[in-house]
């Protein structure tokens, strides 16, 4: 998913895709993708703050900020994932939208895990503080310029970053149910066949 070549840009001519192409060019971002009515614009890590501040001129609404951990180290129930697919990086994402129509862009920046630091948006977006604090405690990402990166949800003495893929969900380790197990137990073959016949009844 992560390193897909550029966008289904050319054939896709929805207004959102046009807009995403336009704003990518204007902001000097790296690339964009539009799929499932979701426009994503990828920017370089060191241009993160500037790009978002510039974009806020037309997309003022700060919707949210979060991150994705792309290392599939220990997916519960699936053991260690394919080492080829293992990516030691985070993606930080921030969604801005318009307050008059449905224009919205999610900005992405990639951070290597050994240098998980990115500029903070709090100087211009007050609402980013809590979101950055959450991303900090959940992923261990540093936001340079956010003076108040104290834990938001977790107790002060909590150790670890729970949303990392390497952080085990203890409850699931000791008791696999409910999860994949009971779903896998369902009769797949037969039932699916009959579903197809009856589906539209």
């Amino acid at each position, binding site marked *: 998913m992560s390193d897909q070549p550029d966008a289904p840009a050319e054939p896709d001519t929805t207004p959102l895709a046009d807009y995403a192409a336009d704003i990518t060019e204007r902001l000097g971002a790296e690339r964009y993708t539009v*799929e*499932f009515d979701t426009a994503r614009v990828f920017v370089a890590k060191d241009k993160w703050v500037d790009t978002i501040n510039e974009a806020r001129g037309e997309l003022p609404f700060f*919707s949210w900020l979060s991150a994705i951990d792309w290392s599939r180290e220990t997916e519960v129930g699936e053991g260690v994932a394919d080492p080829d697919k293992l990516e030691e990086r985070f993606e930080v994402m921030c969604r801005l939208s318009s307050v008059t129509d449905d224009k919205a862009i999610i900005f992405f920046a990639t951070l290597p895990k050994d240098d998980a630091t990115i500029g903070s948006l709090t100087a211009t977006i007050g609402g980013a503080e809590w979101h950055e604090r959450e991303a900090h405690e959940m992923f261990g990402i540093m936001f340079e310029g956010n003076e108040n990166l104290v834990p938001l949800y977790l107790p002060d003495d909590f150790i670890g970053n729970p949303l990392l893929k390497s952080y085990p969900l203890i409850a699931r380790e000791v008791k696999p149910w409910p999860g994949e197990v009971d*779903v896998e137990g369902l009769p797949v073959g037969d039932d*699916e066949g009959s579903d197809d016949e009856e589906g539209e009844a």
Partner: protein
Amino acid sequence: MTSRQLMHRSEVAVSVELETPGMTLNIGPQHPSTHGVLRLVAKISGERIHEIEPVIGYMHRGYEKLSEVRTYAQITALVNRIDWVAGFANEVPFILGVEKLVGVEAPERAQWIRLILTELARISSHLVFMCSFPLELGASTPLMHMLRDREHILELIEDVTGGRFHPNFNRVGGVKPAYGGGSKTKKQSMDLPAGFFKRTLKAMDLMDQTCEDIDTLVTGNELVRARTIGIGVIPAEKAIEYGMSGPNLRASGVAYDLRKVDNYLPYDQIDFDVVTRTGGDSFDRYLVRVGEIRESVKIIRQAVDIIPAGPLQAKVPRVLKVPEGQVYSRAENPKGEFGYYIVSEGGKMPYRLKIRSTSFSNLSILPWILVGQLIPDLVAIMGSLDFVLGDVDR
């Protein structure tokens, strides 16, 4: 009080001029005015707040982590519990997101059922606000009236879904057939319970009366007005900067309603207004919600008229495998923009689920809005923001 009586007049004059030393006041996490387990650490001098630090996380249940080890169907049950006063409305954006990834669309009737139940959830959520907001200002009568009337709404939701608060009613590709199920009855077209529309319309008539009650009890109440008009003014730019949405944003004069801009349910076939006010104070936030109850009643009346017959479920495989992709799906919940960023790597469970909960963003403005306010106004302002701690902490 004897010491005061004994004080000489000159002494009193001196003590008035004395500066009150600053102190730190801890409010909550168990406090009647905090709606739940919210803790506020306020630096005050006298009654004036200089700095305030909300401490949240007492209700943090780690839904984003839990979602990574649950199938999409199981997550629907989970997200009901985020904003529990409007459980149904939480499911809708999630299911719509999954449907986009899978590439199915719910049949028309299912979409209309979703719309009606979302609006019922909106009324129910706003009625809870109509209980708690006056209560925090010291008026306990509206609580009784609103909870009584909300019961009619909850009964309707329960009739259809089987659950008052946690319906868990949406399925990928439609809604759950109301009764029965299983292999024997699968062929029957199971539908809304008999007489549902009639009861809904009756409840809507009752809601008209409820709105009148609200106006009589609260809107015209001199004390409520004195304590809320001009208190806690949030300018539009600040609201936008903090990601405030829903009635809180519309009270600041921004007519931003996802039901109008994002066609996620057939709202475009319905004639309704976006309620806005321009003051941005606590009273306006209250008035917007009263207006929205009236609009929701209007929407439901029309929807009951329009809703077509048809199946409730599109054809979806029994074991749902969601293809690779990333989608952000959002909806206008009673409290504002509620969204899910779903990252699917293929398979039965999402790789990552970011939950954009409304109250979290709405509450993040507290450190800004409460500075310089008086302690008694703190209650009025917080009450007017209408948050649910489960929605803040997830």
